[in-house]
């Protein structure tokens, strides 16, 4: 064992550190398209104190540190671009507290969405959180770190907007509390009425600190959920349709998808509308409001509600929705990646046309999938392609298509979501210079040695 491995083993115990080839191979890659790069060590801490010690050791030895959740972000954010230590957070998976009346939960930095979902269903059946459609192992801390979106994003904004407090190990090794919990025992706000310091961490991909605790807003869980799908063959009408639906304030989540296969989905854009209620009457009232809001489109024959047979509903109502994973294997060989800029809903028609143009140019299987954010303030538009990992040519074509998407997204006024390092570079170049300087000041002050997830948000 090397000295570093020994030192790491002293912190977490021998079983939870490795520099073995198998682990290094595995931790060198994610399921996306970014080239692999091996770490030198992998470690799995159990407590915030252990994380502190790891960070201090790395700081002393100037070894890069890459915090990792489930590694599902797909854009290479956990690939150790400069080697170093992968800090796999999965053992820090405790649900520490639920405040039922104030509707928030405090979890450790490696707790998964799946765990929280089942915990709430069992213990607090009237509460829920905004679950994303990523595999259930995806972690909450990482999801808010990348400003993820979930089932309640249409109503309440990005999942990171739902954070009510953080505990972070700074690159210096200090533990820092962010939000009301810095003064009070209660974790009800990540900022207000204090200066909101959560922005020093959220969105930074672990390059300013490691989250060891996160508190998250919970929301009422209604007894029933249902789904309707409104379809149109005119992409230019999508923004207006979304405007009408969101105006009703009756819906939970709104997703849009368009894809050429299976045939039932060909030629149309599908707006999946989720609604919830405690009683049949509540559900029916909401349904009627939504149908009425779109009646003009039905009458003009520009769109209509497709029949959603009972057999189709469980798939649609599943949380997370596994159909996304099924799309990932359309070409067999399990390759799937999407570029999902956050962009105005009015850009849907343009994005959709661009996706089809690229799919045809590079001969790729595609799917457009959008999620409405905060009642239509913006959306995540996913330009997604599926590919066969055993087909390098197809992978190269996907890479090229995604590169074009990146350029297009910026030119259309979009902002990259969970950008690859290349996209981060493009964003930094385009950014207002004063904003860039502010980011530089923050990064240099918090992480003067540049050891935290290096390669990401390299403002220097």
């Amino acid at each position, binding site marked *: 064992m090397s000295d570093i491995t020994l030192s790491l083993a002293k912190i977490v115990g021998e079983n939870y550190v490795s520099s073995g080839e198998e682990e290094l191979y595995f931790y060198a890659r994610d399921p996306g398209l970014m080239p692999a790069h091996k770490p030198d060590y992998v470690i799995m801490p159990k407590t915030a104190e252990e994380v502190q010690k790891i960070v201090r050791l790395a700081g002393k030895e100037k070894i890069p540190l890459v915090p990792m959740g489930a590694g599902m972000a797909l854009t290479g954010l956990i690939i150790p671009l400069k080697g170093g230590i992968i800090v796999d957070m999965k053992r820090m998976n405790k649900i520490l507290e639920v405040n039922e009346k104030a509707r928030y939960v405090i979890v450790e930095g490696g707790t998964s969405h799946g765990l929280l979902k089942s915990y709430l269903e069992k213990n607090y059946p009237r509460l829920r959180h905004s679950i994303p459609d990523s595999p259930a192992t995806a972690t909450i801390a990482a999801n808010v770190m990348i400003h993820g979106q979930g089932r309640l994003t249409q109503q309440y904004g990005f999942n990171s907007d739902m954070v009510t407090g953080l505990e972070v190990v700074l690159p210096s090794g200090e533990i820092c509390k962010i939000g009301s919990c810095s003064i009070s025992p209660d974790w009800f706000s990540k900022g207000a009425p204090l200066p909101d310091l959560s922005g020093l961490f959220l969105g930074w991909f672990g390059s300013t600190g490691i989250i060891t605790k996160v508190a998250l807003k919970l929301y009422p869980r209604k007894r029933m959920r249902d789904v309707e799908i409104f*379809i149109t063959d005119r992409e230019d009408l999508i923004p207006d349709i979304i405007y009408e639906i969101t105006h009703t304030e009756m819906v939970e989540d709104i997703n849009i998808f368009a894809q050429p296969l299976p045939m039932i989905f060909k030629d149309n854009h599908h707006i999946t509308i989720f609604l919830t209620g405690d009683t*049949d009457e509540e559900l029916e009232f909401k349904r009627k409001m939504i149908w009425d809001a779109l009646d003009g489109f039905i009458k003009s024959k520009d769109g209509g509600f497709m029949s959603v047979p009972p057999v189709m509903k469980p798939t649609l109502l599943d949380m997370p929705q596994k159909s996304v994973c099924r799309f990932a294997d359309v070409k067999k060989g399990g390759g799937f990646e999407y570029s999902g800029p956050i962009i105005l809903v009015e850009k849907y028609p343009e994005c959709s046309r661009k996706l089809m143009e690229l799919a045809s140019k590079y001969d790729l299987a595609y799917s457009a999938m959008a999620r409405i954010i905060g009642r239509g303030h913006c959306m995540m538009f996913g330009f997604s392609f599926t590919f066969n990992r055993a087909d390098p040519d197809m992978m190269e074509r996907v890479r090229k298509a995604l590169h074009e998407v990146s350029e297009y997204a910026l030119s259309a006024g979009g902002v990259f979501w969970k950008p690859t390092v290349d996209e981060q570079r493009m964003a930094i170049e385009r950014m207002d210079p004063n904003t860039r300087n502010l980011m530089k000041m923050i990064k240099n002050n918090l992480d003067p040695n540049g050891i935290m997830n290096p390669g990401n948000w390299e403002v220097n």
Partner: protein
Amino acid sequence: MYTLKFDANLCKICPTCDCLVLCQYMDLDIDKAKEEIMKISEGEDSFVLQDCVTCYGCEEYCKRGNHPFYLITERRQQKGILTSPRAITKQWINIGEPRGKYRLGEIKEKILSFGFMPEFLQLVKGRLFDDVMPSYVFGQEFFCNVVYIHFANTSIIKERLPMVIDNFKKLGVQEVVCMHDECFGSFASLAPAYGIEVPFKSIHYFEYLYNRLERLGDEIRPLNIKVAYQRPCSSRLSPDKHHFVADIMKLIGVDLVERRYQGENALCCGGIFGMAFGYELANDVQKRNIDDMVDSGAEYCVFNCPACQSTLAAKVTKKGIKPIHIIDLCRMAIGEK
């Protein structure tokens, strides 16, 4: 190209004009009805072309062998009058496109046609089907396409139906038991109306069920339950087979309740109405229909069409009525369920 055989003279001298007078969704007296059907047959505009909700009822109301609904559909397509939103129409047409993914059982001279309704792959089981199964076909290649009359599109039917018939022919089958009214209606009503030849005998599955039950007579245990029957739109294409519902119920000891909305007066499940026309119509029709089932004291709602069942099952259940397909009901009567 196949053209509809429609005899306008029959309408001219029709003493009742029931096709439009009996319509449950439009209000026309006999004079207005005559005026409008004549306009339609002469290719002129008529509000009927806008307002018809595609319940297929007029195909049954007309007792003179004309095809008022096919005519309305032809004219709508000629004039570009859409019934459903374009997206819905496209979706349905895309779904029905042959993709070479059909399924064949062990084909004999007599087969069951499941059309393109996967529900039958589950429903069709047991002794009722012993003498034909596993001789069956399923898939778009055997899908009659008649549903597109809901979508004012006869050209797709004229294009695909002859190919479908040809696919049956290539199998060398003599008798096709149609598990869905639309399938039966396509061979027994629509194809002859357009002069499309059908080189095999088509049998309505009600007739088949009735005959099978008769043969299984000893095994029938009367069910002694009260049921309401949900009549599908497509059964209007073969009204002469409708009597089998009552006949079958009698055979299995089921009380088919008297309702306001039965027989010619039956109401649609509303599935197509919702897609094509929106909430008000679908909701109104479904509410009246289900309230009527409740008022008539039905314990079960018996479905013939799986699509009606998928549309209404949850709604009738909420009103305390059990949804069941007629095949399952018959299987219950012979102790299989």
